């Protein structure tokens, strides 16, 4: 172990341990049960010994009558029942507390993650976060919960067993320590290689999955180049490596479990040989002999548990480190302390001399825009011109530099996040929907929404007819087991979702790209009505969508290159006019 347990409060486990005071009661109660259950275990063993001695009439022991045997046996059963209750309490309370810890800890992790922006966690794969949330928390839980319980059990049982045995026959006890200690050592020594091979095994399984996944994803290439045999041989090679580490792992594990049987056999051998001699010499009664055999079973298990804990330590520690890393992530978009929401919102958006870059790559150069309340601004430009970045900054999905983006004349950085999100609604470019019902996706922004409103919003986004065609209509689940929406349907549902939030300012970020032109026209007609009294920004490649706007801005390489109404821009024969001409041709071809 890297650090002794009394230092854990400062090591990687510190954060996890800080949760424990909350579960002090069940945890302590459970641990308290360890003592009586061990004591009662010992009591039954001793009573059984006495019954044996009474039955065989060992020297110096009163022979026990049959009634006595029955009475004592009943007593044993009674004790066993009481002991069962304590064992139940021990497991239930300690494991329960560790589960409760797990729940609260995971909840905190989730809530922490929700404070972050996608960019803050972009460097960690989703699968990685998932495995931390499940496997790593589980490892920490096992280590701080059940493992503590088993160790407490060991701490109580071992001294009890050793003292009892030593009082009866210290020589025999001393000799029995040999297999015990040897076993503890074997388990401890095996912990490292077990960890090593199991990790390697996991990695190789990962490699194997990757190869399988690649070949299945690229099945057309594999088949086109008749590379099946080669793929098989790569898979076999990976499989062989996996096989090898598995065999190694199984060997280490097998040796560990074999050493348990062997330790038991050696212990029995000691009892048979030395105990036999002592019985012949009259120093040990038959009952004691049997007690020693029983002690072997009783004391061996706690020893194994200690070994198991040691094996688990590294895994739990690594898990705690990884979890701490997640908790250490700081959100980049934060609400300023004391941010106050204005009483009313007019909805005027302004961008002043905004320059921005991702890392060292400049994206926007000195962009200035003004959208008066209730007006619609169109933004267009080729891929990579900075449109999406501009949208992210204006809606504060990413923090703009101070003093560049204003809502009603106030820097968006100084507004409370809830106010800002309620005021500025964005239909993002990638229309991510959750795999829940269509109705709950449309009503996503609200705590409660009635079906009528959902329908109305769906109608406004021209997706109502599509939805009503599904067998379950608005109750249809999305995703793998539900219906799969086409790109256009997704985009329209996403529009309905934002409309349902009813924001005074709305930004449509190129959200009709997968919709055919006819539907687009219909949606735009509907939107014209909805946008009438709102401030809006429409980002699009399509002239038809932009023509809704009061003014249009053309971006190129992060700077505004053209600005004006649709008519002005078409007349100017600049980039906008070219897009216009091109789309006219496309429509012509489509109509053929």
């Amino acid at each position, binding site marked *: 172990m890297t650090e002794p347990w009394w230092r854990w409060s400062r090591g990687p486990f510190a954060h996890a341990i800080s949760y424990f005071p909350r579960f002090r009661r069940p945890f302590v109660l459970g641990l308290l049960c360890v003592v009586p259950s061990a004591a009662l275990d010992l009591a039954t063993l001793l009573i059984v010994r006495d019954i044996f001695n009474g*039955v*065989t009439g060992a020297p110096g022991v009163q022979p026990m009558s049959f009634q006595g045997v029955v009475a004592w046996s009943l007593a044993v*059963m009674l004790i*066993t029942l009481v002991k069962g*209750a304590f064992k139940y309490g021990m497991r239930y309370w300690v*494991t*329960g507390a560790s*589960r409760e810890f797990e729940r609260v800890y995971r909840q905190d992790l*989730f809530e922490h993650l*929700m404070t972050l*922006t996608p960019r803050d*966690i972009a460097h960690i794969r*989703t699968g990685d976060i*998932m495995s931390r949330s499940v496997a790593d928390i589980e490892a920490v839980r096992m280590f701080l919960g059940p493992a503590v319980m088993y160790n407490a059990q060991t701490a109580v049982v071992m001294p009890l067993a050793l003292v009892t045995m030593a009082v009866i026959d210290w020589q025999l006890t001393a000799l029995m320590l040999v297999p015990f200690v040897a076993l503890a050592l074997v388990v401890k020594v095996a912990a490292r290689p077990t960890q090593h091979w199991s990790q390697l095994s996991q990695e190789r399984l990962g490699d194997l*999955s990757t190869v*399988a996944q690649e*070949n299945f994803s690229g*099945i*057309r*290439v594999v088949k*086109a*180049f008749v590379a*099946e045999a080669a793929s*098989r041989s*790569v898979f076999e090679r990976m*499989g062989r490596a996996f*096989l090898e580490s*598995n*065999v190694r792992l199984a*060997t280490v594990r*097998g040796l560990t479990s*074999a050493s348990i049987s*062997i330790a038991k*056999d050696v212990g*029995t051998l000691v009892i*048979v*040989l030395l105990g*036999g001699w002592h*019985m*012949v010499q*009259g120093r040990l009664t038959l009952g004691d002999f049997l007690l020693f055999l029983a002690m072997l*079973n009783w004391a061996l298990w706690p020893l194994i548990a200690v070994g198991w804990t040691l094996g688990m330590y590294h895994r739990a520690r690594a898990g705690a480190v990884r979890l701490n890393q997640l908790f250490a992530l700081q959100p980049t978009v934060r609400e300023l302390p004391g941010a106050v929401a204005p009483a009313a919102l007019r909805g005027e958006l302004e961008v002043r001399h905004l320059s921005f870059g991702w890392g060292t790559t400049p994206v926007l150069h000195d962009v200035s825009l003004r959208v008066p309340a209730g007006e619609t601004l169109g933004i267009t430009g*080729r*891929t990579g011109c900075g449109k999406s970045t501009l949208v992210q900054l204006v809606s504060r*999905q990413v923090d703009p530099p101070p003093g560049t983006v204003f809502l009603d004349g106030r820097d968006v950085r100084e507004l409370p996040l809830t106010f800002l*999100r309620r005021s500025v609604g964005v239909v993002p470019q990638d229309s991510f929907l959750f*795999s829940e*019902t269509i109705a*709950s996706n449309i009503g*996503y*922004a609200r705590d409660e*929404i*009635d*079906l*009528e409103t959902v329908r109305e919003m769906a109608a406004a986004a021209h997706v109502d007819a599509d939805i009503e065609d599904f067998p379950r209509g608005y109750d249809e*689940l999305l995703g793998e087991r539900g219906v799969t929406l086409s790109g256009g349907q997704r985009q329209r549902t996403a529009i309905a979702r934002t409309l349902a939030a009813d924001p005074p300012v709305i930004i449509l970020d190129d959200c009709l790209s997968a919709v055919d032109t006819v539907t687009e026209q219909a949606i735009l007609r509907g939107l014209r009505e909805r946008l009438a009294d709102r401030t809006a920004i429409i980002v699009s*490649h399509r002239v038809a969508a932009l023509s809704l706007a009061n003014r249009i801005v053309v971006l190129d390489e992060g700077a505004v290159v053209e600005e004006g109404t649709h008519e002005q821009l078409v007349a100017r024969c600049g980039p906008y006019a070219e897009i216009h001409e091109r*789309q006219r*041709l*496309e429509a012509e071809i489509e109509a053929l």
Partner: protein
Amino acid sequence: MSAAARGSDNGRPAAARDHHDEEVDVAALYNKRILRRLLQFARPHHGKLAGSVALLVLGLALQIAGPWIVRRVVDGPVQAAIDGRGADPAFDLTGPLAEVSRLGLLFALVALVSAGVIVLREWHMNRMGQRIVFELRNTLFGHLLRLPVGWYDRHAVGWTVTRATSDVDALSELFTTGVALLAYDMLKIGVVAALLIWIAPQLSIVALLMLPLMMIVSFRFRHNARSAYRATRASLSRLNAFLQERLSGLAVVRLFRREAASSRRFDQLNSKYYDDNMVTVRHFSLFFPTVDTLAQGVKMGCLVYASWLIAQGSLTMGVFIQFWMYLDFVFDPIRELAERYNVLQAAMAAAERIFGVLDTPAEDGSPPRATPAGPAGPGEPPAVEFRGVSFAYSKGPPVLHDVSFAVRRGQRVAVVGHTGAGKTTLVSLLCRFHETEQGVIRLHGRDVRSLPQHDLRRRIAIVQQDVFLFSDTVAANIRMGDTSMPDDRVRRAAEAVHADGFVRRLSQGYETRLAERGANLSSGQRQLLAFARALAADPDVLVLDEATSSVDSETEALVEDATRTLLAGRTALVIAHRLSTVVTADRILVMHKGRVHEEGTHDELLARRGLYWRLYRLHLAGSETEAASAGAQRIAPDAD
């Protein structure tokens, strides 16, 4: 309106129709057919299997010998000493002591051999089990690769990967320990029960009467624990799905300020998981004390009865101790039996899914169809010929209508058209990724359906629009499994298409391992590698599906030049997006809505002022301001 839909992050736990319940396998019932099929995989190893059985039986015999020796010690020297001392306090103990030593030595011998047997058994059985699973996995993977492309269109990649990994792993437990230990435990219970009856018939009645009760309790408990466990898996799966979605859709969560609502919903799911876990915790907390109490009951019952029998003189102390020790031999496997049964069930469920895949017919399962050669045209047959081909993907709308065209040897034909015109489907049909429904496709005059798959595909090389690279070395990606291809040819192919330059700059040149899907290369570099791959394959017919993704102008020039090299003097069908490729083609097919709309050379088609002419003008319009709308076709400003 009474029905109320609620915001998804705040709603009730998902409706009854929840797929996570289905995901957790409903354990397959014990199925002889599946078990027999599984055992077939073990058949080639029957020698080793016999070895493990022998080791198991030997191990059992040695285990049983232990208590027997203890009995000999107690009833022999110990009893003799007690009796002797009772008669004469100065009884000579040398004889009994020596007897104990002899028996102790015997015990040591048994323990030693037993240790050897156990170690050997662990090692041997694991090796064998892993080996069987290894072979099964290879068989499965090999079969999967032979399944038709259409099958892959219908199955998610993740699902398929799970078959080849997790499911096979579930079997691994079965083969390495499961079956053998299950058999061993059954054998042990049977043998020890018989021994109990044999050594103390009267006493055994007490024990054996209570054994069924223990078994019932054990199975009952494990059954409950199993269903509780299943509930736990289902709620964990739901929790994970929710977490994963909130992470993927974090931007949406934040845009709509649903962090708090998401947390509330997560709390519900998390608490459900906790509750389900607590059911399991309760089961287990109850299970162990209950079984222990029952076992203790059996033992105490035996003890009471034995004390009476001993007093009667019809049972010796040694026999009773042996009996007492054997009781534990029965209790332990009973405790484990139900668990082993669960392993078996899980393995059965996995096996059922695996056999489901293995039973899916492979694409080359049926022999090539014999088709009439058809009237041979005058002279050499065209390299590629489509005659009246119509096609629709399963139940979808028709994608191709009555398409006919031919590519003569050495000719280069460009296919142009808007998205959805059916261009890519032409390639799929030519390579027989899908079977044509109507019409005939011929390669050098032979119906492609009459050619063995491998033959057909070896003659055609494809460069796909969406280049697929494997996370293997650069060289391996060019070789594509042809291990006989000399390094020299790999390098020359790369040189010819201008890939050599950047490959050499990679840390280990051609031996550099690429990231998944070649993510560490630019899209232009990936295209060049795909060119090198096709060139190295040196096919009869080259099919090039040009990429639409934009690359920087420097790379663009390289790609364009590489395209020229690749196509030089080759029979080629090009799904063209690059004007230079189109203009220099021997013939151009203009596809529109699944039909060949126009056909001819560049000049002819321009003169016709039809669809091609419009597409061409669209190109020119697009050359200035590139719009990302569908079907964007790039043109290099300096195109010839």
